[in-house]
Every structure is written in structure tokens, then in C-alpha cells.
């Protein structure tokens, strides 16, 4: 990227900075781009135009537009934040096989995952800024006053580190700094394990919510992250293949099968963890845990849980990636979309189940269940976050070079480790 006083050049596209010239260039570009792209961008911008007033309406003193109550304080915005935060970590986790370990099948994921991860993290931070009543205080309060007993504080620390590392990764990716990029990818992969685990710990340390309480919640979050990141990559690479974007050939031959194997792993992992949680809940003698599980299996959350989360989100994708007839590019795409919907629904049922058990708080007794219905503003904010990511990624796909580069050195490649301790053979070291 090269900037002068008059213009900005990014990956071969030059944008003049004088207002009138910039506007003319923008209009020219908009007219010139292919019709489907125009429609898609117009649709996204339209969605954002509807969402922005909704988001502004939720700023102080508009908090009453949220549907949360003292018995159900964490609602759809927290669900959205958790979903986008684990997606961003999952993206780095899924692609770390290519970036950190240098496995060839996963190399095509290199650049695209970083852009998606950055956009997803920005969306997550945006959602949480709208949910908090005094977000500016968090900057001063959490940064200058450490609260090490609070898992939420640690989550902020780790996601902050993750943001910095991601920025370095994206910057070094486009400015030809391969060794810095390698180090940043390794650091991002490490943080991508710790950060969602800490996010799980935010829920897991609460004795007041037995459904969330326990050591399996961090593990479930990391597994969900992996699944969610992989699904998003699957969706994006299907688009790459179908639209013939940069790197489409390698996408079809390498990336999509690789994503399919990652999806299989993620789906099996998450299925085992969800099954464990349901079994533990059915046999538990803690009343809140038992009633939360009952709500999920046979109660108000049953349709979401069985219909969307289990069947649509786990069983059907597993069938799609396992059966030979559907082990195709289209099958992987369908599995990715369904798995992603499943993960979002899982977050929603997870956050709801933790608070749904009948309780009494600040003078309100809830029976038989605590109720919560998301307000339109909360739904709008979530839709806006998704539209933001789609818009950002579309622009990145169009104006940046997202093909793999062959410059990224594998820092710790398996073959390097293998060759250190090999007996010398007559042909010499083979890499």
C-alpha cells in the first residue's frame, strides 16, 4: 500500500483522495463492476442502512429497547458477541494447519481466513460496544485497573492481544514480511485457543448457573469455534470456486476437501460434547441444571435444540460429509451453511438454557420458565454485524489479492521435525 498526499494505491488500485475526484472514481467503479456484484453490494448497503438507525436507537438512553430483564440479563447481543468471537478464533484455528504447520492442503486458506477473522472480531467488538451501557468506561476501567479474578477481564485481555496479532498478520500479509507473518500466525493460533477457552470460562465459573458451570464449557467453546470457523471458510471457498475468484482452481482441488475433513472433525467433536452435556444434565441432581436440560430437551427450547441444532446443525452435515454421494463441493457447501446455523443456534440455546430455569431475582419470580424474547433492535444489530462482515469481505475479495503466496515459510513443518532425527540415507536428506 502506498499513500501520497493525492492518492492511495492498494494492490494495484489507485484511489484519488481529493473529494470530488474520489467521488467520481467511486461512481466510475460502481458503474463498471459486474451486475451481480452491484446487486449484492446494493443489498448489503441497504441492510446496513436499515440497521444503523436501529443501532443508534440502542445507544444511551435507549437501553430499554433491549428485551433483557434481571432474570434474563444476557440476551441476543451476548449470543451474537459470543458467536462472532468464537468464529474469529475458529478461523485462525482451522487455518493454522496451513499457516503454522505448513500442510499443503490447507495453504489456500492463508489470506482469506485472516481477512474474515479481522472482520468477525470487529463485528464482535461492535456488538459488545452496543450491549454495554458505558463502553468507554471499559477502556479505562479494564485497561488501567486489572481485575484478575474476573474471567471476563481475561477474555478482554486475550481478545485484545488477538486483535493486535491479527492486525500484524494482515499487515504483514500484504506488505511482504514473511517472517513477521509466520510469527504472527503462530501467535494468532495460540491465542485462538486461549481466547475462546477464556470465553467459555466466563460462563463456566458461575455457580449461580449450573447449566453453564463446569470445566466442559471452555472445551465446548473451543470446539464450537473450530466448527464455526471451518464452516465460514467452507461457505467462502464455495463462493470462490463458484464465482471463479482468485485461486479458484486450488480452492476446488485442495481447499474444499481440506475444509471437508476439518468439518468432519469439528462436527464429531461438537456432537460428543453436546451429547455429554445432555446426559450429564439428565442425571444431575442440581435442580437448575436438570430443569435447564429439561427445557432444552422437552421444554420451550426443544424445537430449536432438536430441530435446528441437532438435526439441521449436526446430523445432516455429518451425513453430507460422510456419505460418498454427497462428498462433493456442493455437499460441502450445504454442510458448511447448516453447521454454521447449528453453531449459532447452539450459542442461542446455550445462553438461554443457562438463564431459563425458574428463579427469583430483584422481586420478580419466574415460573415455569424465565422468558426472554429478543427485541427487533437486537435482531437488527446482529443482522447488521453479518452484513458488515459480508460487505467487508466482498470488498476485500474484489480489491485485494487473496491468492496464496509461496513466500510464507513453514516455521515448524512436520517434515523438518521428521528429518532432524532420520538416519542418513545414501540419497541424503530428503525434504
Amino acid at each position: 500500500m502506498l499513500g501520497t498526499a493525492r492518492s492511495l494505491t492498494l494492490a494495484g488500485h489507485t484511489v484519488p483522495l481529493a473529494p470530488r475526484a474520489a467521488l467520481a472514481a467511486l461512481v466510475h467503479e460502481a458503474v463498471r463492476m459486474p451486475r451481480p456484484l452491484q446487486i449484492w453490494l446494493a443489498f448489503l448497503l441497504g441492510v446496513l442502512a436499515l440497521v444503523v438507525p436501529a443501532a443508534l436507537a440502542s445507544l444511551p438512553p435507549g437501553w430499554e429497547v433491549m428485551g433483557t430483564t434481571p432474570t434474563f440479563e444476557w440476551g441476543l447481543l451476548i449470543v451474537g458477541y459470543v458467536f462472532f468471537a468464537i468464529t474469529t478464533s475458529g478461523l485462525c484455528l482451522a487455518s493454522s494447519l496451513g499457516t503454522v504447520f505448513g500442510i499443503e492442503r490447507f495453504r489456500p486458506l492463508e489470506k482469506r481466513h485472516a481477512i474474515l477473522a479481522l472482520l468477525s472480531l470487529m463485528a464482535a467488538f461492535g456488538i459488545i460496544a452496543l450491549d454495554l451501557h458505558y463502553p468507554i468506561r471499559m477502556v479505562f476501567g479494564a485497561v488501567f485497573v486489572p481485575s484478575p479474578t474476573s474471567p471476563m477481564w481475561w477474555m478482554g485481555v486475550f481478545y485484545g492481544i488477538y486483535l493486535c496479532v491479527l492486525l500484524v498478520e494482515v499487515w504483514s500479509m500484504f506488505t511482504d514480511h514473511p517472517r513477521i507473518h509466520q510469527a504472527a500466525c503462530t501467535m494468532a493460533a495460540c491465542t485462538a485457543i486461549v481466547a475462546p477457552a477464556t470465553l467459555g470460562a466466563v460462563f463456566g465459573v458461575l455457580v449461580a448457573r449450573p447449566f453453564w458451570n463446569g470445566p466442559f464449557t471452555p472445551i465446548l467453546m473451543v470446539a464450537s469455534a473450530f466448527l464455526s470457523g471451518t464452516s465460514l471458510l467452507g461457505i467462502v471457498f464455495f463462493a470462490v470456486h463458484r464465482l471463479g475468484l482468485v485461486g479458484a482452481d486450488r480452492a476446488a482441488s485442495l481447499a474444499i476437501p481440506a475444509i471437508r475433513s476439518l468439518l468432519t472433525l469439528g462436527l464429531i467433536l461438537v456432537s460428543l460434547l453436546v451429547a455429554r452435556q445432555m446426559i450429564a444434565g439428565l442425571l444431575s441432581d442440581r435442580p437448575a441444571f436438570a430443569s435447564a436440560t429439561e427445557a432444552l430437551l422437552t421444554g420451550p427450547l426443544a424445537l430449536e435444540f432438536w430441530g435446528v441444532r441437532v438435526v439441521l446443525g449436526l446430523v445432516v452435515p455429518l451425513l453430507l460429509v460422510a456419505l460418498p454421494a454427497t462428498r462433493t463441493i456442493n455437499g460441502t457447501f450445504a454442510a458448511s451453511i447448516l453447521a454454521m446455523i447449528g453453531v449459532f443456534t447452539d450459542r442461542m440455546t446455550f445462553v438461554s438454557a443457562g438463564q431459563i430455569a425458574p428463579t427469583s431475582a430483584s422481586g420478580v419470580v419466574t415460573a415455569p420458565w424465565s422468558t426472554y424474547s429478543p427485541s427487533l433492535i437486537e435482531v437488527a444489530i446482529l443482522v447488521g454485524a453479518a452484513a458488515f462482515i459480508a460487505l467487508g469481505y466482498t470488498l476485500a475479495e474484489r480489491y485485494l489479492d487473496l491468492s496464496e503466496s509461496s513466500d510464507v515459510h513453514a516455521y515448524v513443518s512436520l517434515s523438518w521435525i521428521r528429518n532432524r532425527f532420520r538416519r542418513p540415507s545414501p540419497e541424503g536428506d530428503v525434504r
Partner: protein
Amino acid sequence: MAAPSATPPATPSVTPPAGLVPLTEIAPAIAAISVSRRRFLGFGLAIIGGLSGAAGLSRLFPVFEDTESAPPPIIPAYDPVGKAWTFVVDSSACIGCGLCVVACKEENDVTEDARFARTWVERHAVTTDGTRYVDSPDGGIDGFPATSTAPGAEGKTVAEAFFEPRLCMQCEDSPCTAVCPVSATYKTEDGIILVDPRRCIGCGYCVVACPYGARYIAPAADRSPNDTPGVADKCTWCYHRISRGDLPACVEVCPVGARKFGDASDPKSEIATIVRERAPKPLHPEFGTRPRVLYLGPAVEEA
């Protein structure tokens, strides 16, 4: 300076003083680095060095550790050290009149919205078929109607019922103070847990962390703590009254003496006698938070 001309003036050539060698002769690689990047790096190093030095220097001086003169007391003539404030609630004596709820809202300027109460009364009713129903109409602020308003309890005959006043337990091992990400909620020296409305960000973590449902996020209504809506709020055991030697407002107005409050560190006080002789117990000890509100009567067996 040079006379105005179309071309910029040439840089004057200066012979360096003796003993100093030009940069480019020492390390030819330096010429390869562009001037702007060099300047940026140099500037950055200076800033980092300055900041680290400053941070290190400021850490050398402890800000407020063991100064000879203690800061002024919270309230004149109130020594929080050594106080063992204890609250005992007798659920067999409570008649569900709701005067405590009224007094609390009046005393502490709590919002009039019925969904938010610092203290409230619940009625636990067991019907003839053995089902347990809990209801708390508007927190009990207008008393209780004749029969249980809990969903599913209509038309059923109540076999036995009792009232359970609830408030913040000021737990010894409180989960709310542990999970606050900005340390806005804290415990005072006399064991009362308070929320600093200037620092709270309204994330609601303490609200979901409280096993007893004592906290809420103050709504954007007329009355809010320190005129700051959107922050966490909860019962403070009327800190402004107990530090003056008065009783909390709910204890003051209870007509049947179902709420008792005092300093248990004095063994001859009424509260210490009650604790010793009647052995009140906390609710839900399985949460492990060690609440400091102790209950007598049917509330304890049911929990």
C-alpha cells in the same frame, strides 16, 4: 536564505567536524533504508524508552502504602474495622405485608418500577397435591392477595404457605465481586458489598453471577443510584444508616420483627443472642458463597 527561484535551494555541503565519520561509510546498508523509515524508528525508540523509563520510575514510588496519617474515616466516629454486621430473617414470623419493600424503595430512592426491587418478599405455597408454588406480586410491595398468583396455582387449595423475605446476602465469598471486569463492585472493610456507579459499565456479569438474584441493572427511570442509570444496583443493608448506628429501613418498619439486624461482634447484643440460641442458617449453602443473611423458620428446610 537563498534568493527565490524556481528550483529549491541546494543543500549546503558541510564538512563534518573532525573525528565523526558519515553514516553511510560505517554501514553501507543504512543507505538502503529510506530516510523516513529511519526517522520513524528512531522516534519510536525514543518514545518507548521514555515511556518505559517513566513507568519504571513511577513504579518506584508506592502511592499509598502505610502512610502515617490514615485517610479520613468513612463517616465521622464510625470505625468499620471489627464490625460483624449480621442479618437474621425469621420466615415463620413474616406476614407478607410488604412494608419492608415500600420502606426500602422510599429510603434508597429505588426506581418505582415493580420489576426492580432491592428487597422483596416471596410466598412459598404448597397445595394439597404437593406442588410448590412461589409468587411475589410486584415483589410484595402491596402485600399479598388471598391466593397464590403463581402460574398453575389458580383454583388450587393451599395446604401450607410461608413468606420468605429476600435481600442481598453480602456473601463472604461473593461471586459478584470476583467477576466484575472493571472492579466496580467491591467489599468494604465491614463486609458490605457496594457498587461504584462511576465505574460500572453495565455488562450484567454480576447480575447473572448472583445465585440469589439480588442484583439488577438500574433502568433508565427517574430514580437511579447516583443519578446514573444503566449500572448495577443492589441492597446495601442501608449502609448510610448502619454507619450512623441506625437499623436498615426494612428492619425498622417490619411490624412483626421478622427482620433482625445488629453487630454480632458484641456477644450481649440481641443479634448475637439470636444467632447463638436459635442457630439460624443461610439459604442454599450448596452455592458455596457463604451468605451472611441467616434464616429461621420454614425457609431453611425448604431450601
